């Protein structure tokens, strides 16, 4: 499948994946700081939803990494 992609196309896809992964990691950073703040303030209702969301983000990132690894250099 990748054989048909030109080098420019591959680069564009890699850049797209990089942007997505960066966005997701930033989301996780924000999630962690917001959760910690709420938790230290005595609100623990957000802990498990936030943990589930962060885990889902990590899974999406690993899926994107798999896509990246499948692309020919």
């Amino acid at each position, binding site marked *: 499948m990748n054989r048909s992609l030109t080098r420019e196309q591959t680069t564009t896809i*890699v850049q797209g994946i990089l942007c997505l992964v960066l966005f997701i*990691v930033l989301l996780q950073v924000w999630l962690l700081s917001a959760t910690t703040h709420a938790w230290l*303030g005595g609100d623990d209702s957000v802990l498990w939803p936030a943990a589930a969301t*962060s885990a889902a983000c990590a899974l999406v990132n690993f899926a994107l990494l798999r896509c990246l690894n499948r692309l020919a250099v």
Partner: protein
Amino acid sequence: MADIDQAAWRQDFPIDWPQDHYVARRDFTRFLVLASLPFALVQLGIGIVNWFRRNRGRPPAKAIAPLAEIPIGGVLSFTYPDAHDPCLLLRLDDKTLRAFSQKCTHLGCAVTPNADKSCLYCPCHKGYFAVENGRPLAGPPRRPLPRITLENRDGVVYAIAVEVNAS
């Protein structure tokens, strides 16, 4: 000419430094994905720590002092629930007693009552808390001081619980 200037060992072990420092987009993406895992693990860790804390149950009640020994306007320090948790007991008037954890909710310095005992003061970054409810009044703290629930048992003041969100 350049080769002649180089030390012999450099010629034997040539290192292309620009190439060595070059981080490809793919490598950077891999690094980011790897960084995303600890974030998720820390979130899970917070959930687990919170679960353990919730299931630890209430700390046992602890006698602080006989009420008669606390003067009106007086301040007493004690530890609760553990020996490492410093707290302050304030007798605001004849009937009103308040107790708070002494650890500032900003970065954990010890708070002390100010001269006229109208508020609790943290000297580290000039944080102020209300003595009535521990609410932050000024300075960097955003969260109230954990409040210690008190009980008068036969004339002796007991600490019976810690309320974290007491504002």
